[in-house]
């Protein structure tokens, strides 16, 4: 399976994961599945990519 990383939406704080090669450092917009906000990785409220994020992240 492809490598993925977690992001937190800058608008609603919703957490989801995306394809690393397609979105990390690529200037491409992700789309929040919860509020439909488009944003780039540098605009994310937070990013978690090394391991599984904790429950309260």
């Amino acid at each position: 399976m492809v490598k993925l990383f977690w992001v937190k939406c800058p608008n609603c704080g919703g957490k989801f994961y995306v394809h690393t090669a397609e979105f990390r450092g690529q200037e491409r917009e992700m789309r929040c599945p919860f509020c439909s906000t488009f944003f780039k990785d540098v605009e994310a409220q937070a990013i978690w990519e090394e391991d599984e994020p904790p429950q309260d992240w």
Partner: protein
Amino acid sequence: MSKDLRSFLKKLEAEAPELLVRVPGEVDPRFEITALLQNLEREGQYPVVIFEQAKNLKGQPSGIQVISNLFADRRAIALALDLPKEKWRLETSLEYQRRQSNLIKPQVISRDEAPVKEVVKMGDEVDLHDLPVLTCHAMDAGAFLNDAVIAPDPDTGVYNASHHRQQIKGQNITGLAASPRHLWSYMRRAEDRGEGLPMAHVLGHHPGFYLGAEALVPMETDEYEVMGGILDEPLRLVPSEAFGDRLLVPADAEIVIEQEVIPGTREAEGPYGEWTGYFSPQTLNWMIKIRAITHRRDPYYMGIFVGHPDSAHLGSIPKEGGLFQQIKNAVPTVQAVYLPWSGTCRLLCYVSIAQQAEGEARVAALATLPLFDEIKYVVVVDDDIDVFDERQVLWAVATRTQPAESVDIIRQVRGGTSDPSQMHPTQGSKMIIDATRPLDRPFPVRLSIPQEALQKMKPEAWLAAKDLTRLGINR
């Protein structure tokens, strides 16, 4: 009368009414439909469920009934292939295989004869939000169409059919995910010329239509002909509204969405709860423009419960028959093949053989691997083991194998791209477990009780009625 979803529902009601339930109350397609299906699954129940009143994506009554779980119980699939429901095991897979190799050309009819043309919406009338499109799982990026997508090869006109998810992104825009197989090839070739590819998303038809879309056939084989074979009659087609003869669509469908790839576009699509039981990540995928929606006057909307037996059996039965034939070429004494639900009906494969010579079990296992990439574990057992009974298979593994001698691991083999455990995008490893008895030394005999005694001591002849009822023995 041609086979369609309605003729199948009549057959189901007549021959297996216990496999069909109706929900009269109004439901929201966002999580409520799949939540009920999940709760039924927890009770060990997998009926076809018709939701008689479903809201659309605007929160209004849609006037469209939703049907799901058509493939969740293999007995319903046996009926779809005109077998008795009791023949749900290998007989169903072999019947599928027989029909798949009997291609039947489709029949083109006029639009006046086509039930799917009873209502035609084009231009501004097209609005996907009028439909009760399911949002299945918590992290899904919204509502997704998830039935069969049909498209003609841009060079040869040969039709491909396959299951794809399409995320609703607007009134007439969706995003479509495609892995590098036939439809992907079609879309890339059209895109390289700067052209869109006409396609149809078919929502609701006879189960044989969707089973045909899962056939493993070469790209040169027209899958409308495969579907005819599976249905055992010519599939009726009709020219589309938006593309005319360039795109023929199934005339007896419930709802057809006529659409076109927008060449050169990619946008974030997903996450989506997939067949693996996990959410696939958001990726860049094609944008699709909807050109027309046609449907029956009172259509059913079919939603597949992906990641559950509904999608799992839809994928496995078309593969089991092919696997059986492939193994049979190498090991003629193969008895049965099963892709169990515990392995999502793809990753685990159980094979039984009547082993004649040492080494046949490994040959049988290796023969399964070329057919499709997702198989990761193959367990081969003797013919006294019922592969459809997982407890028996695991008993054979527990009592007939020694890990150091019975297990082989093959590394760096092409694997399933969706397997979440796979570190490499396309390559993984496979494990073969030879759980057959050795032939080169005496092996202990299975426990047994004489048949005469078993016949004499039937519980119904010896237990009180109240105890039979209490134990759930009803004969």
